[in-house]
């Protein structure tokens, strides 16, 4: 997006915000924070950049190189691990017109125009302080969940471009579960040289409008309860073994396995940073199943989602 376009977008959004769009059913919001979120949602798709990012989870730190190159119509993305496995993940030719459900939820200007409150119904957004990240001047947005089904975030955005430079996931008792940030950043629109990687994975492109492939189970099933504000990220068939949901900031996936034999009912979970894996053994309509919820959500969310699984008639 050109700077002029960005200015126009922000101006029209400001008008919407000030013009009483929030006087309707939407909760009271900090319009400055909402403007920044909207800017962030666009910049991540429309700006070319590359840099080095650190990811801290508990006492483990990973370092990776990330790049995003766009010619205005499509983008190329790449992540190369500089520590650990050293794998590379890339995504080629991602059309700018292709907006996934999670990103749509963050585009507050469009959401408001469509009469929706978007994530302001689920999180309270407010402005934090200023800081420097990777040599850039950054503004903080504090994102506090309004219920107990998701984590909070402290996001630092480039003051000039709106790019997300640093993000901390905050759990119960203000504990930081995971933090990632740029250590260095360049807006140079040329991709850095590719490094040798033993493992190169081409990212998949699941989207609600695309034909779904993936593992299936014997019977069609459904998740009967979702925390408010979560929407499906794609459209798997009713007997697909996986469902994934997003509220724009958090994502979780539900995996179902049918078991041939009975299982002692119970649950167990492990978590790494902000990522949870919750597994529950139970009987649904006489059929023993193993349900696993994986994602960046608290364990109570996973438990309640798993509990709501039912066969479709």
């Amino acid at each position, binding site marked *: 997006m050109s700077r002029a376009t960005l200015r126009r977008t922000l101006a029209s959004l400001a008008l919407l915000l000030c013009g009483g769009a929030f006087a309707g059913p939407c909760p009271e919001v900090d319009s400055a924070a909402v403007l920044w979120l909207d800017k962030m949602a666009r910049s*991540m798709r429309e700006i070319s950049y590359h840099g080095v990012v650190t*990811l801290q989870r508990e006492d483990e730190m990973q370092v*990776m190189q990330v790049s*995003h190159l766009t010619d205005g119509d499509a983008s190329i*993305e790449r*992540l190369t*691990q500089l520590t650990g*496995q050293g*794998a590379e*993940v890339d*995504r080629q030719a991602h059309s700018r017109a292709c907006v*996934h*459900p*999670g*990103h749509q939820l963050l585009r507050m200007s469009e959401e408001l125009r469509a009469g929706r409150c978007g994530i302001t119904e689920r999180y309270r957004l407010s402005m934090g302080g200023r800081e420097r990240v990777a040599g850039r001047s950054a503004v903080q947005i504090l994102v506090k969940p309004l219920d*107990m089904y998701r984590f909070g975030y402290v*996001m630092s955005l480039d003051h000039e471009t709106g790019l*997300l430079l640093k*993000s901390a996931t905050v759990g119960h008792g203000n504990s930081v579960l995971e933090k*990632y940030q740029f250590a260095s950043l360049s807006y140079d629109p040329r991709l850095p040289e590719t490094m040798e990687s033993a*493992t190169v*994975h*081409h*990212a*998949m*492109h*699941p989207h609600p409008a695309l034909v779904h492939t993936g593992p299936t189970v014997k019977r069609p099933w459904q998740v009967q*309860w979702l925390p*408010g504000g979560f929407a499906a990220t*794609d459209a798997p068939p009713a007997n697909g073994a*996986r469902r*994934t949901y*997003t509220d*724009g*900031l*958090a*994502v979780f*996936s539900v995996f179902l396995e049918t078991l041939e034999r009975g299982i*002692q*009912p*119970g*649950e*167990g*979970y*492990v978590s*790494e940073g902000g*990522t949870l*894996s919750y*597994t*529950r*053994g*139970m009987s649904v309509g006489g059929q023993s199943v*193993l349900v*696993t919820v*994986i*994602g960046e959500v608290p364990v*109570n969310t996973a*438990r*309640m989602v798993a*509990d709501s699984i039912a066969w479709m008639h």
Partner: protein
Amino acid sequence: MTERMRESLSALLDDEANELEIQRVLAAVDGDTELRSAWTRYSLARDALDSQPLALAQVDISARVRAALAAETPEPARASGSGLRQRLLRPLASFAVAASVAATVVIGGQQLAPAGGDAGTDAVARLPAGPSAVSILNVAGATAVPASYGTQPLPVLAPADRTAYRELARSRMNRYMQLHAEHAALNTPQGLIPFARVPQIHE
């Protein structure tokens, strides 16, 4: 079941509930079948996690127990040294207390015809140890509702080994994390970074 109630129930089972939420759940559990069955299911799952043996039937809170719990001025605690009200006013310190409350109200389900005999005692004896339900009940001056197992066998669910389920969760994380990351990478503001959470990336 309302969203608010669901939250309170979830908080209760996660040791996050405050007194208001406990009271809210207790006040509603009687007339809300959905809430009752949810409580039973969550408790069972949670129970397995805690490796505590617990026999559960249908939840049926006895009005007597509920009245006792809501009593303004319970008899001073002699046995345990702390009153019911104090216990309830304090945020639940451990799930054992919540489970005790749950388990206590479970006894005497609809299909379990009230009867004399020792069945009730047996069931109480199987409640989890800890700051126990038994003492709460005794302190409050209520008696456990005797339950007969009647014609239907009471489902006694031996809790699965805690470690076994945790290992299952670990193996599923390894198996499914990359598939999850494919979606997270397109539906959060983090770009490809969700792939860095995958234990082992496959091509």
